[in-house]
């Protein structure tokens, strides 16, 4: 099994979720995150003092998937999250040794 982590633009979350659901992915875990990269932040001004805000808001998704599904899940996310503008984000894949469903204790494929 693999863990697919995706960092995407916040307003793309809804489309990614729908695309994943359509592709049969039934569960995922989401965190709010901030990104630093080529996409520039912005400037804020408070009583004349300028602040450089370098982080941009992102949504971070984690999906544990069967080995067989990795490629399609990555492709689904990538295409649904794409705007073509800088800052669209990254997707990375990590090997997973095992998964457990807390409710039942089922493991691995059965836990997804």
């Amino acid at each position, binding site marked *: 099994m693999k863990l697919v982590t995706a960092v995407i633009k916040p*307003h793309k979350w*809804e489309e990614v979720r729908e695309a994943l659901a359509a592709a049969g992915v039934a569960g995922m875990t989401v965190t709010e995150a*901030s990104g*630093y990269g080529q996409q520039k*932040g*912005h*400037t*804020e*001004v*408070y*009583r*004349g*003092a*300028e*602040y*450089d*805000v*370098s*982080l941009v808001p992102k949504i971070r998704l984690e999906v544990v998937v069967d080995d067989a599904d990795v490629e399609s899940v990555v492709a689904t996310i990538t295409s649904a999250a794409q705007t073509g503008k800088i800052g669209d984000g990254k997707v990375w894949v990590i090997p997973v040794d095992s998964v457990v469903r807390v409710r039942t204790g089922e493991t691995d494929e059965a836990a997804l």
Partner: protein
Amino acid sequence: MDTGDTAWILASSALVLLMTPGLAFFYGGMVRSKTVLNMMMMSFSALAIVPVLWVLYGYSFAFSPGGNQFLGGFKRLGLQNISVDTAYGTIPEYVFVGFQLMFAIITLALISGAIADRAKFSAWIVFSVVWITVVYFPVAHWVFDFGDNGGWIATKLKAVDFAGGTAVHINAGAAGLALALVLGKRVGWRRDPMRPHNLPFVLLGAGLLWFGWFGFNAGSAVGANGLAGLAFVNTAVATAAAIIGWLAVEFFRDKKGTSLGAASGAVAGLVAITPAAGALSPFGSILLGLVAGVLCALAVGLKYKLGYDDSLDVVGVHLVGGLVGTLLIGLLAVGDGLFYGGSLDLLGKQFVAAFVVLAYSFVLTYVIGKLIDVTIGFRVSEEDEVTGIDQVEHLETAYDYAGSSSGGSNLLKEL
């Protein structure tokens, strides 16, 4: 001059002043966290612009002697010819100047709810200056100037508008509708979630509006007397009944009552009782409040059916609530209302006042809005709108709860 009357109108003026910051919270809590500052700035800018224009010429256009039934005269330009000893009825004229100023401020601010999240701040400023001059000052003259050469609604038509159902609420509501049409829908309207980011702020705003509204309505007796007392009681009870009306619609539809519904119902009731506060019995005010609560709760759905993005329901609450209040006077006014054995006469006058103000405000606002849109542009770019108007138009973000722990920001340059 009477010090007691003066004391109450001074206090009332302060109360009505507070309504505009209150509105900033009522509206600001309803928008998304990325646009709350802009929403509030539309109210605060009204507090900045209107007083200056009021002193320069607004008061004169609305209330100076020497005008005609459509516009006041020029004798009060720059507040000339007033001294601390000049009286307006039983109070110093300066006190009346202050009291009426507050009505002008809030009326302008009310409109902004229709165009949340998407108006260029500079365009809003230009709009404010033009609108208050061309629409509000004349209408205030029509409705509120009872002097010789007073306004046509006040002195010729003699429709009943105790505290501004027409001049304030129908006026702002019609203007809101016009601007919502000029600016068009928000990006993502009916697709993206646009739920209130801070409901306690909405309730705070409702609470401050409510509080201030006692100055608005009971202060419109322009004295500390039994009429003020009646207006006070009517305001309290109509508001209460309107909350009940709004929540009843929700219970019927959703099986539950929401806090946003309670806050909205309160404002709907306050709007509806505004023109009627001096003319109804407390019992009549309960009826009026119930009707206003139910109708406004239904009216906020109109925008989805008709397809205009009146973002915070200026139409559903202020236009509809203002119409309900203004017209029901024709039925419920003690003495000459239809239900009290009066003729259709009063109801007819109320219709004329309501619809002339509605039409005047709608048409002129639409024209002003369009002119601004085709010249300097009224809307921010789509990208800026998605990013959030606070950051783009005000170079700020409203909240930073994480503080320095959020990392990400850095002092670049001081003033």
